[in-house]
């Protein structure tokens, strides 16, 4: 079983409502998290302003915060190893980590996206 842990930056009271604007990437990511859970993944999210102890107790996360600061969040761990840093994963990345296929998006061929060569 794959465990994905997401260390969110300090979001204020809720979802960033009290911030300036609702970040559409966060919205998309919430939906992707729901999808991944349906695929059987264990996904945990931690908010810096609410569960700072989790950040402090994890050596990888603590080291990352010390080197790069909280502006460099989010940090994504896959089975306790860094999988992605500085942005939220998209659905393709989640699928790759979980080893599942995505049925909706047709897989793109790697050779030459956009041109007519293949």
């Amino acid at each position: 079983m794959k465990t994905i842990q997401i260390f969110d930056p300090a979001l204020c009271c809720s979802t960033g409502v009290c911030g300036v604007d609702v970040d559409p990437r966060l919205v998309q990511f919430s939906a992707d998290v729901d999808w991944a859970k349906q695929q059987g993944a264990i996904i945990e999210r931690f908010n810096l302003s609410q569960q700072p102890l989790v950040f402090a107790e994890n050596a990888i996360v603590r080291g990352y915060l010390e080197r790069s600061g909280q502006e460099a969040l989010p940090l994504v761990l896959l089975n306790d190893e860094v999988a992605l840093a500085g942005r939220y994963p998209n659905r393709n990345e989640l699928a790759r980590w979980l080893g599942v296929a995505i049925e909706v998006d047709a897989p793109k061929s790697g050779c030459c996206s956009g041109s007519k060569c293949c």
Partner: protein
Amino acid sequence: MRFIEHPPHFLFFTGKGGVGKTSIACATAVKLAGQGHRVLLVSTDPASNVGQVFGIDIGNRITPIPAVPNLSALEIDPQAAAQAYRDRIVGPVRGLLPDTVVRGIEEQLSGACTTEIAAFDEFTALLVESSLTAGYEHIIFDTAPTGHTIRLLQLPGAWSGFLEAGKGDASCLGPLAGLEKQRSQYKAAVDALADPQKTRLILVARAQQATLREVARTHEELAAVGLTRQYLIINGVLPAEEAAQDALAKAIFDREQRAIATIPPALAPLPCDILALKPFNLVGLDALGCLFETVAANTTETPATPNPDAPSLATLVDGIAADGHGLVMLMGKGGVGKTTIAAAIAVELAHRGLPVHLTTSDPAAHLAETLNGSVDTLTVSRIDPRIETERYREQVLRTKGAQLDAQGRALLEEDLRSPCTEEIAVFQAFSRIIREAGRKFVVMDTAPTGHTLLLLDATGAYHREIARQMGSKGVHFTTPMMQLQDPKQTKVVITTLAESTPVLEAANLQNDLRRAGIEPWAWVINNSVAAARPASPLLRQRASNEQVEINAVASRHASRFAVVPMLKEEPIGVSRLLELTRIPEVSRE
């Protein structure tokens, strides 16, 4: 006194700072204890003077009052409670995480919501049956939780998995994250509040139209969450015989009687008591004993006609005018008269021929209408907080809410009812106008708190990073926060009343702004009876009480300040607004 008849187990007093909740709560406690009931008095007033009232130190533990058999008291300092609450979350990581990270987390937990939740957390234990409360027949609170807090605690989505598991997807629980008691205890507490057999809510107001309107909103909001057993007290009403003493007293008397006669329909069915303005301070048992009685005005020695040696608003405007342009933001608790002072400053500037844009969020709107086009260089615009907040809510629910399940959506909707939401929505609307302040004067009757500014600036930090990178290419770039922090561009004027709780609340606002790197430029003390130089003995007594607070502002809080006199008429229209900017000469009638 109807509110004190057949009292239930819990009595909550609620109302704006300075309406006299604590004094009335104390007097109620003394009265019930005098009838042989065992009473616990709980104060969560940040300016609690319960100890002073009874002449002993109380503090954050249940303390018997020696002079009053059957009475014990407890003072909960909401600021200290919030600090303890922050420490519970932040303490374990201090030294482990980088300092900047720790400071950021602390800011997230420094808002008004956190303070309220923390205070609620403290007195939750008093709302449930326990050995702590078993000995008391009546527990009297001098404040009540807001509808927002109660609704938040009633939502199942606010709890599921969060307290128990310590992690949740919703991340909607900022202010709730540090709650340490069991969920069942909060549920019991909220249930007790909503039980009309157990709980009576007493709304305390002054006889002013705006205050009564606000109390009507509180009434409806709390009734909707189950606190249906409500009473109303209109406190500090000027007695009829005093009206004969001078023109100002007559004008106040007429205005108050008019406000009582035209009470909002929502409040009309509530059992109502009217308490007369007293000529003495409500400190000490004798004074408390008289609160519910009618007392002749001349029982105490009457001070001389006040002669406060205080600067007028016009002298403050001199300093604003000197810079030629800029943003002036009025800041203060609701009901202190920010809109009026903003209008007076704007009119005074325009009167001097300077270009001014006054922008107001005044719900009454009449002020903006009467001023528009009245002075050549003055333009007036209005932002409707209700419309702006609704627009913002809809936008968030459309984008963010679409992805959430029913519980998550309920939680998001409640978050959007928090006071911060309105503040942000209104500020976003205002910020469109702020840009004009480079060319003319822009006067705003509202401002976000330092806490909100810091949160908004969390994204500003990103802008600053861009600015730093652009800086090397010589491109000029400022964030809104940088504009607000620069005293040349922005002057924050704190507005308050010459009473102890409003002054303390204003000092808290000032500290909050300082945290955001904004130094308030001046304080304005509005509606001063002292500055109006009354002849009536009762008003002279009030004026001498005011003098203590005016001195405190002058010596402790403000680098510059002005005092605005209470007028006989409502300050509507250009000539009366100009009248506010001057302090009348002493005249003996």
